[in-house]
């Protein structure tokens, strides 16, 4: 088995984990658990299929299991943040910290989708497979997440959501 196949994906797994949980050390723990699981299940990976998407699937499962077992304190703290607009004015350069803060106010489900699409640039199809949810759910989470972020960053009213088929 070729270690390098997995090792070359570590920087991207770290990027996603960092964006997902925020804290550097918790994120690297998540990456470590993901790598251990990936090694043990490597025989299940079909050569030629998308290894990166497969690794994101494993990370998602590890993350969900961990969150279920011992709810990340960070999550709870963030989920309790009131949904107030970060900025009231528009037109200025948005601050990166504001974006990060707003990202933390999203539910974990929405955050996963938005990060896999925006940062990891997976297709909706790949996100649907990685998270094991129907594509319609991917689209509705993405739509809600983006509207919420737009509202909080721009101080605008959240649009009524359209039903996505």
């Amino acid at each position: 088995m070729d270690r390098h196949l997995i090792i070359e994906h570590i920087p991207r797994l770290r990027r996603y984990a960092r964006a997902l949980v925020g804290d550097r050390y918790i994120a690297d723990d998540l990456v470590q658990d993901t790598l251990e699981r990936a090694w043990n299940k490597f025989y299940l990976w079909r050569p030629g299929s998308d290894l990166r998407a497969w690794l994101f699937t494993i990370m998602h499962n590890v993350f969900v299991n961990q969150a279920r077992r011992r709810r990340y304190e960070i999550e709870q703290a963030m989920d309790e943040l009131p949904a107030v607009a970060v900025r009231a004015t528009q037109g200025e350069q948005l601050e990166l910290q504001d974006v990060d803060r707003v990202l933390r106010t999203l539910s974990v489900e929405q955050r996963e989708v938005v990060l896999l699409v925006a940062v990891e640039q997976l297709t909706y199809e790949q996100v649907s497979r990685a998270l094991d949810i129907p594509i319609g759910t991917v689209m509705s989470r993405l739509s809600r997440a983006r509207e919420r972020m737009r509202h909080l960053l721009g101080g605008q009213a959240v649009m009524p959501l359209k039903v996505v088929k």
Partner: protein
Amino acid sequence: MKPVGEAELHTHVDGGLSEGAKAEMEAWLRAHPEDAERLRAYAEQNALLRSLYDPVLDEPVPAALLAVRPRVWRRYAVAAAIFALGIGLGWLIRGQFVTSQTVPVSLARQAATAHAVYAPEVRHPVEVTASEEGHLVGWLSKRLGTTLKAPKLAPLGYELVGGRLLSGPQGPVAHFMYQDPRGQRLTLYVSRQRGEPRDTAFRFSQEDRVSVFYWVDGNFGYALSGEMRKDQLLQVAEVVYKQLNP
């Protein structure tokens, strides 16, 4: 103009529309400025999130993550530990008849196995951390029935991470872990030796990727392990030896 759906709007932001659909979408957006404004905001979110997290790609990957190996490998490590235990016991029995000069060989192997098992740990490398060094040293001293010292290796760049109690073929083992700023780890394995007190010379053993310097001093065996070259480890081993035998 055919109305566009929410899904198409997002697909457009994420660059997934075909050329034909893209032209239609652009026409739609010209006629619907509020949708155009919304998509501009989404595209900006994408760009901001990337500039926020792309820098992680350029960070050096922590050594502990590169050291993650298949657990099968760990099973080998456990098997090796049991094997070493067998050998250790074998030598003990043998020691009844022959001088037990060879016992330290299994000391090196046990130490290397313990190093291979614990050094890659990110979350639980030690049982008691260096912040409670006094408690750690007191506890391990009590269990080993001697007065232990955790060598000070900071001048060489290695800070104490902490330690744990292990079970060795000859009873309790004290295991101290050190780490340098790059995450390179060293472990010191201290175990009680059976039989007559004696001293041995400094010895070296290469156990797979782990280098080990070990010696017996009185009733105790010491082994310093690290995944590094012999000459690098020797520098540290000499300092450890001097501090333990002032």
